[in-house]
């Protein structure tokens, strides 16, 4: 711990700040993986068909089935996977930074349970409640995700401060309550259980350009705020009091970061369902490799999160193609063991 603080203090005064080489390499790697992910899929397509599909998409002349698959299904799906992965990773960085705990993840404050309940309400009751039907699954899961976190924040608030411990406790309580309500809804409508469950396990299969356009503003806002807050996050690691002495408006910074991380997570979850481990693993892996300076950690974790999610989605749609595996299952199966390995490695480090 002492070592970490020294490194941080050093990093904070170090003028170099962002380390560009790993960022450039990471961006290149992500681009390469995304290209591969667009090239591979259930329907085999040659390079010529892929290029034609993208070209026809760009000039607005999507006609053949191959064009449709490349431009309207596969490309947006890969892009959305990258965006969602990046969003989850940045939320992970923010939460881990705020709570000074590398095990915090984007779902800590009830986003997942809130979004799940929203989706379950839309899937099971969508038609009987007309005003609900209009917002659809993404709209409702987004709204409920924000609602859950809002309830958590209100419950945890002590005057104008939000103590970390009461935040986490409130998150657990609200999470369980929402989860119970979701389960109850599933029991009430067994014929919709498969639909709710499929959503809970995550999937990009219904993703299109409209989903990207819808969530992009939220992700952009969150990314900008979190990237610009690199130094603030670094100082927060020294503890609230010390950060305050160094001029950080601690409570406001925390609240802002929680707000944007929650927005990003809620937006991501609303179009893809619950995808675990990415928000936990990506920041953690980067921290182990390159240290805890947020000016490098945040952008690189986003790149890694995007990379991991694109790969996980590629696995999800190719392993048992033409059928699919929910992506949440893939990230859990691959992420779980990897995380255990990280934990072991970390013990040797600290």
């Amino acid at each position, binding site marked *: 711990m002492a070592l970490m603080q020294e490194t941080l203090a050093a990093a904070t005064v170090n003028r170099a700040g962002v380390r560009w080489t790993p960022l450039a390499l990471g961006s290149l790697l992500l681009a390469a993986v995304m290209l591969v992910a667009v090239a591979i899929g259930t329907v085999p397509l040659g390079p010529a068909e892929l290029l034609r599909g993208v070209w026809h998409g760009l000039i607005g002349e999507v006609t053949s*089935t191959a064009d449709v*698959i490349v431009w309207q*299904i596969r490309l947006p799906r890969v892009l959305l996977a990258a965006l969602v992965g990046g969003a989850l990773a940045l939320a992970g960085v923010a939460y881990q930074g705020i709570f000074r705990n590398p095990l915090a993840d984007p779902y800590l404050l009830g986003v997942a349970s809130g979004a799940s309940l929203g989706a379950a309400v839309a899937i099971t009751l969508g038609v009987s409640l007309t005003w609900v039907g209009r917002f659809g699954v993404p709209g409702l899961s987004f709204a409920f995700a924000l609602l859950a976190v809002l309830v958590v924040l209100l419950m945890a608030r002590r005057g104008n401060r939000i103590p970390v411990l009461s935040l986490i406790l409130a998150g657990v309580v609200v999470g369980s309550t929402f989860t119970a309500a979701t389960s109850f809804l599933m029991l009430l409508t067994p*014929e919709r259980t498969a*639909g709710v469950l499929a959503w809970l396990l995550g*999937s990009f299969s*219904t993703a299109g350009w409209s989903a990207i356009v819808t969530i992009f503003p939220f992700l952009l806002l969150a990314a900008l705020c979190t990237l610009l807050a690199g130094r603030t996050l670094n100082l927060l690691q020294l503890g609230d009091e010390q950060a305050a002495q160094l001029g950080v408006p601690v409570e406001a910074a925390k609240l802002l970061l929680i707000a944007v991380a929650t927005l990003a997570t809620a937006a991501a979850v609303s179009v893809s369902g619950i995808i675990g481990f990415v928000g936990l693993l990506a920041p953690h892996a980067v921290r182990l490799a390159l240290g805890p300076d947020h000016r490098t950690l945040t952008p690189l974790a986003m790149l890694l999160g995007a990379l991991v999610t694109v790969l996980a989605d590629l696995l999800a749609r190719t392993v048992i193609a*033409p059928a699919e595996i929910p992506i949440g299952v893939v990230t859990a199966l691959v992420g779980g063991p990897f995380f255990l390995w990280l934990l072991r490695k970390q013990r040797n480090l600290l």
Partner: protein
Amino acid sequence: MEPFRRVIGISLLLALIGLAAAVAYPLTVVDDLGREVVLDEEPRRIVSMIPSSTETVCALGACDLLVGVDQFSNHPQAVASLPRLGSAFSPNIEALVALEPDLVLADEYSGIAGMLEELGITVYAGTPQTLEETFESFETLGRLLDRETEAALLRGRLLGEIEEVQRRVSELPSPSVYFEVDATPYSVGPGSYVDELIALAGGENIIGEGFAQFPQVDPEYIVAQDPDVIVLADAPFGVTSGSLAARPGWSSIDAVRDGRVMELTSEQVDAVSRAGPRVAEAVRLLAAFFHPDVL
């Protein structure tokens, strides 16, 4: 249609055997859990916790023996007034026991059978999953309820009705069919009951070789297969041909372009998905949609 011929053959044979003698109680039947179900005398108070079994009991003319059903048993009309006993996975055991049933028809997955067995209540556990099992279930329930003649007649009538559809569509070209269970998208694959119905109705399910019974499908595959017709079993939950067209790339599918999308009502969904006496009705319904000019 080889499997179908086999069903007919077996059924007719069983019908002949069945007609030869009335049921002699005490009767022992082995259920789907491999349990020996013993009935000392003809059951007079029956509880059905499976919608398809409820329909079968009524189709055998034994509707008046039912004293309670699960909350999803909504057909035929005669069961509407019966007490509701929850569902398979959240049964109201107290209310069920209070009805003092001498036979309970339950599913084999939920554990309800084991629970009732401990309470000394006679349970037959089993749900038909395929066409063959559906026809077997008529026969089994016919034996349990001493309605073997009715079971043989029901079987004969349904097989005749399905044969009639077969006769009219077998020579026609089969449209390719995508049957949607859920917008995820979930569909039905080989070995599932609905897949068999699609084939009987003269359709060609695009979810074929290599798929599981209830697969989540890559939408890419559906767009590439370009089905001629689409059946929406999730229509009662707000999926429409309009919402299909809004899905990425789906507006290029023939069925969506030509408006050959069938939005099932919730009653039609039950008729098609429940392996029970509405099987012929379901085949007719699908066939009329697959071959609108002929039927």
